[in-house]
C-alpha cells in the first residue's frame, strides 16, 4: 500500500518535472555510487577511524548531542578545554554537522539499523558528497541545460579538490557545507530565472542550513550582492532579480540570526554590510525607476540629482555613525586576509601558521583540478557567448572563487564546484558541436550536407581527444585520491625495505595511555594542534586546542615551550599542568613534529613576551639547527629537552652515530639532557609521542 502510494507520488512528481530518460536516471545513480565509492580508500586500507584533528572535536560534540539531547547541547559549557577558562561550546560552534549526524543516527536507529555513532560520522561526508553530485546536476541544468548538469555531476563526483575534504573519515564542516552551498546557489539561480518566491524560500532554507554548517556562509552573503550589482551595472535588472534578492536578504538575515554563533553579527559585522548596502541600493533603484515613469525628463533629471546626492549623504552619515559608535565591527582578521593576503603574515602569526591558510601554487591548482583548469576559461567563453542571468552568476562565482582559492589553499574546496560547472559547459558545448559532424544525414535545414571527409576526421580526432582527456582526468583523480588524500593522519604507514607495510599507531597508543594511567582531573599541556584529539580520545583537560580563540593562552604555552626549564616550570605550576606532551618524529622521520613547528611557538610566544626573539634560536650562521651548531637558547629550551631526553643513547643503524635525528638529518647537539622539574612518564613505541609528568614543588 505504501509502495503504491509512493510510486503514485513519484509519478506525479516526474510529470511536474521534465520527464527524465532512463539513461539520465541510470547515469545519476551511477554517479551517486561512484562519488561514495571513490572516498572509501582509507576505510578499506586502515579502518573506519576519524581522521585529522578538527574532526575529533566534531565527533566529541556529536557524541554529547546524541547522549544528552539538543537543549543540553545548545547550553553546553565545556570545562575540559582551555583550562582554566573553559569554552561555551553551545554558542561558539556551527552546529549543522552535528545536528545532521545526530538526525541520521536517530533515523537509522528508529529503523532498527543500529549503526555506531562513529561509523555514522565517518561515512557522513562521503554520503553527502554523493548528494552534492546530484545537486550539482540540478545546478548545471539551471545554469545551462541538462547535458551540462550531467557532465558537471560526473566531474564533481571525483574532483580531488573536493575529495580532499570529504573523504570517508574526514568528519568536518565542509563535508555538509559544500552540499548546502550548491543547494543555495541552485535555488537562488532558479529563483532569479523564474522570479517566483517559492524557489526563493527554498534558497533561504538552504542558506540557513549553510549558516548552521560552516563559517564560509560569508561567501554566499557577499557573492549574491556582487552578482546583483553586476546585473544592475550590465543593465540586466528585472523584477525577477528584485523579488529573488529582497526575499533572500530579508528572510536569510532573519534565519541567519537564529544561529547562536552568528546572532546579531548578521546586522552588525562589516562582513554582512555588503548585502545590506545592495539591499538598499535595489530599493533606491526601484524607487528611481518608479519615479521616472511619472515625471517629465527634465524634472526627473533634477529629482535624480537631488535624490542621488541626498541618498549618498544619508548613507555616508549612517556608515560613519555606525563605525564611530562601534556598532558596525570591521572585518575580522580571518576574512580580511582574503582581501589583503599580507595581513596575516604581518599581524596575526597564528593565522599565518596554519598550513591550509597558505596561498596556492600552480601545482596545487593542477593537482586538485587536473584538466578542469584548462576547461574553465573555455566554459567562461561559452557563457559570454550565450549570456543569461544564470551564466553571469556562473562567471562571477567562478572568478571570485578562483581568486579566493589563489589566496588560501583551503578554499580550493569552494572553487571545485565552480570549476566543474564551467568545465561542464565547455565539454558539453564542444562535444555537441563536434558530434554534429560525425552524424550522417543530419536532420534540419541548418545543416543539410554531411561533413566532408577531412572535416569528419578532424572532428573525430577532436572528440577522441576530449575522451582521452577525460580518461586521463579519471586516472589522475583516482591516483590522487588513493595516494594523497586518503591518509587518516592519526595512523601513519611506511613501506619497509622488503615492501611490507609498517603502521605507526603511536598517537592512539599515547592517548589511550593517558586515558588509562593518569588521574581523571589531570591537565595536559601540549601545542594547540593536538588539543582536540587529547580531549576526545584521552578524555583529559587540555590547556589549548585547535579552536585557537585565545591568542594569549596559546602564547603562554608557546613561551613555556621556548623557555628554559625553570621559567617553564613556573608557568606550568601557575597553570596547574600535570603532564606535558610533545610530538617527536626524529626516530622514524616524521616531519610534522614539534621541533619543526617550534619556530611558530617562538613567534607566537614572542607576541606575549618580547624577550623571546626568533633570532636567539638560530645558529651562528642564522640557520635553524639542532646539532652542535645550535644556539644556546635552543639547546636549553624546554622543547629541545623534552624531545631529545634520552635520545642521545639511541642508535638507529650502524652507519649513523647515536642520537641521529632522521628528520633534520643531523646528530643532535646536546646528548646528555637532564630534566629536573619534569620526569618522563611515557614514550610510545616509535618515540613519536613523549609524555612527561610535572614534578610537585620541592619541600621547603
Amino acid at each position, binding site marked *: 500500500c505504501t509502495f503504491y502510494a509512493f510510486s503514485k507520488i513519484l509519478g506525479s512528481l516526474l510529470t511536474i518535472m521534465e520527464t527524465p530518460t532512463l539513461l539520465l536516471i541510470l547515469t545519476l545513480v551511477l554517479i551517486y555510487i561512484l562519488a561514495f565509492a571513490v572516498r572509501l580508500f582509507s576505510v578499506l586500507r586502515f579502518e573506519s577511524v576519524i581522521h585529522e584533528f578538527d574532526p575529533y572535536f566534531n565527533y566529541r560534540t556529536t557524541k554529547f548531542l546524541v547522549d544528552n539531547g539538543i537543549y543540553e547541547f545548545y547550553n553546553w559549557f565545556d570545562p575540559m578545554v582551555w583550562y582554566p577558562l573553559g569554552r561555551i561550546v553551545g554558542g561558539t560552534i556551527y552546529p549543522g554537522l552535528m545536528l545532521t549526524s545526530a538526525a541520521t543516527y536517530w533515523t537509522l536507529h528508529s529503523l532498527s539499523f543500529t549503526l555506531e555513532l562513529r561509523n555514522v560520522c565517518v561515512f557522513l561526508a562521503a554520503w553527502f558528497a554523493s548528494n552534492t553530485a546530484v545537486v550539482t546536476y540540478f545546478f548545471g541544468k539551471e545554469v545551462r541545460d541538462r547535458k551540462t548538469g550531467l557532465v558537471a555531476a560526473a566531474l564533481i563526483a571525483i574532483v580531488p579538490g573536493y575529495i580532499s575534504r570529504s573523504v570517508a573519515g574526514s568528519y568536518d564542516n565542509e563535508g555538509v557545507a559544500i552540499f548546502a552551498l550548491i543547494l543555495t546557489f541552485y535555488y537562488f539561480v532558479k529563483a532569479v530565472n523564474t522570479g517566483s518566491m517559492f524557489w526563493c524560500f527554498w534558497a533561504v532554507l538552504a542558506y540557513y542550513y549553510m549558516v548552521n554548517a560552516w563559517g564560509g556562509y560569508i561567501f554566499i552573503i557577499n557573492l549574491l550582492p556582487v552578482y546583483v550589482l553586476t546585473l544592475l551595472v550590465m543593465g540586466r535588472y528585472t523584477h525577477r532579480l528584485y523579488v529573488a534578492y529582497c526575499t533572500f536578504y530579508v528572510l536569510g538575515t532573519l534565519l541567519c540570526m537564529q544561529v547562536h554563533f552568528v546572532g546579531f553579527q548578521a546586522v552588525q559585522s562589516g562582513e554582512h554590510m555588503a548585502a545590506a548596502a545592495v539591499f538598499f541600493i535595489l530599493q533606491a533603484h526601484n524607487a528611481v525607476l518608479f519615479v521616472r515613469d511619472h515625471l517629465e525628463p527634465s524634472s526627473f533629471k533634477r529629482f535624480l540629482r537631488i535624490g542621488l546626492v541626498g541618498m549618498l549623504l544619508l548613507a555616508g552619515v549612517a556608515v560613519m555613525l555606525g563605525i564611530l559608535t562601534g556598532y558596525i565591527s570591521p572585518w575580522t582578521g580571518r576574512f580580511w586576509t582574503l582581501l589583503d593576503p599580507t595581513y596575516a603574515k604581518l599581524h596575526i602569526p597564528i593565522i599565518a601558521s596554519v598550513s591550509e591558510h597558505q596561498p596556492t601554487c600552480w601545482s596545487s591548482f593542477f593537482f586538485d583540478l587536473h584538466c578542469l583548469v584548462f576547461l574553465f576559461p573555455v566554459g567562461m567563453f*561559452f557563457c559570454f557567448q550565450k549570456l543569461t542571468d544564470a551564466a553571469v552568476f556562473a562567471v562571477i562565482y567562478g572568478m571570485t572563487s*578562483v581568486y579566493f*582559492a589563489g589566496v588560501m589553499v583551503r578554499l580550493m574546496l569552494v572553487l571545485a564546484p565552480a570549476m566543474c560547472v564551467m568545465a561542464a559547459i565547455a565539454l558539453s558545448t564542444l562535444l555537441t558541436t563536434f558530434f554534429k559532424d560525425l552524424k550522417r544525414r543530419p536532420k534540419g535545414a541548418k545543416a543539410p550536407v554531411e561533413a566532408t571527409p577531412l572535416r569528419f576526421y578532424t572532428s573525430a580526432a577532436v572528440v577522441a581527444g576530449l575522451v582521452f582527456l577525460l580518461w586521463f582526468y579519471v586516472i589522475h583523480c583516482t591516483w590522487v585520491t588513493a595516494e594523497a588524500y586518503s591518509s587518516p593522519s592519526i595512523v601513519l604507514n611506511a613501506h619497509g625495505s622488503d615492501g611490507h607495510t609498517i603502521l605507526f599507531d603511536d598517537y592512539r597508543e599515547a592517548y589511550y595511555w593517558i586515558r588509562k594511567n593518569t588521574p581523571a582531573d589531570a591537565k595536559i599541556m601540549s601545542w594547540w594542534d593536538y588539543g582536540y584529539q587529547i580531549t576526545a580520545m584521552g578524555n583529559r583537560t587540555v590547556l589549548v586546542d585547535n579552536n585557537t580563540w585565545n591568542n594569549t593562552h596559546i602564547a603562554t604555552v608557546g613561551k613555556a615551550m621556548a623557555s628554559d626549564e625553570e621559567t617553564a616550570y613556573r608557568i606550568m605550576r601557575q597553570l596547574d599542568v600535570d603532564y606535558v606532551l610533545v610530538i617527536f618524529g626524529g626516530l622514524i622521520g616524521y616531519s610534522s613534529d614539534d621541533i619543526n613547528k617550534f619556530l611558530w611557538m617562538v613567534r607566537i610566544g614572542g607576541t606575549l613576551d618580547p624577550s623571546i626573539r626568533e633570532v636567539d634560536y638560530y645558529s651562528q650562521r642564522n640557520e635553524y639547527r639542532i646539532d652542535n651548531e645550535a644556539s644556546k637558547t635552543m639547546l636549553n629550551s624546554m622543547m629541545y629537552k623534552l624531545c631529545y631526553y634520552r635520545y642521545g643513547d639511541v642508535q638507529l643503524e650502524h652507519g649513523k652515530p647515536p642520537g641521529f635525528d632522521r628528520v633534520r638529518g643531523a646528530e643532535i647537539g646536546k646528548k646528555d639532557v637532564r630534566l629536573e622539574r619534569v620526569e618522563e612518564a611515557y614514550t610510545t613505541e616509535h618515540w613519536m609521542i613523549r609524555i612527561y609528568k610535572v614534578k610537585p614543588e620541592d619541600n621547603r
Partner: protein
Amino acid sequence: PSSHPPLPVFPFGKMRLAFVSSVVRLPNLRLKIPKVERPPAWAVFCVLLFSYMLVTGGIVFDMINEPPSVGTRMEDGKQRPETVMPYRINGQYIIEGLAAGFLFCLGAVGLIALHSVATGQLVLTSQTSEKATVVIMIAAIGVTVVAYNVVMMFLRIKLPGYLQH
C-alpha cells in the same frame, strides 16, 4: 568680472555660488562628468582571462613568500639554474608559476579557437576556406595538446612518483 559657470552637480550651487563669487573670482572650469561606456564582452573576457592566468600562476604565493624567480641547484660542482621547484606541490618559483598559468590559458585559447572555427564564427577571407578551417582546427588541437603535455612534464618534475604506487 565674476562668472557663474554652470556646475552640473550641485543643485543648490547657484545660491552658494552667488555668495562665494561676490568674495572671490571663481575659475572657469569646463568640467563634464565622464560618461562610462559598457566595455564590450570580448574585452571583459580578456581581462578575466589575464587575471585567471596570474592567479593560477600563483602570484599571491609569490607576493607572500617571495621565492626566487629561478632556483639554482648544484650539478657536478657547478651551479645550474632550476626552473621547476622539485619534490613539493606547495612551492614554486615565480617564472615557473607564470609559465604554468600561461600554459593553462594557452590550452583554453586553443580550445576556444577550435570551437570558433568549427562553428564558423571565426571566418577567414580565403579562397579555400574549408581547407583553412581544417588547418586552423589542427593547429588549435596541436596547441592544446602541447600545453597539456608541457604542464604534465612540469608536474612530473615536481612529483617524481606521479602515477606510481
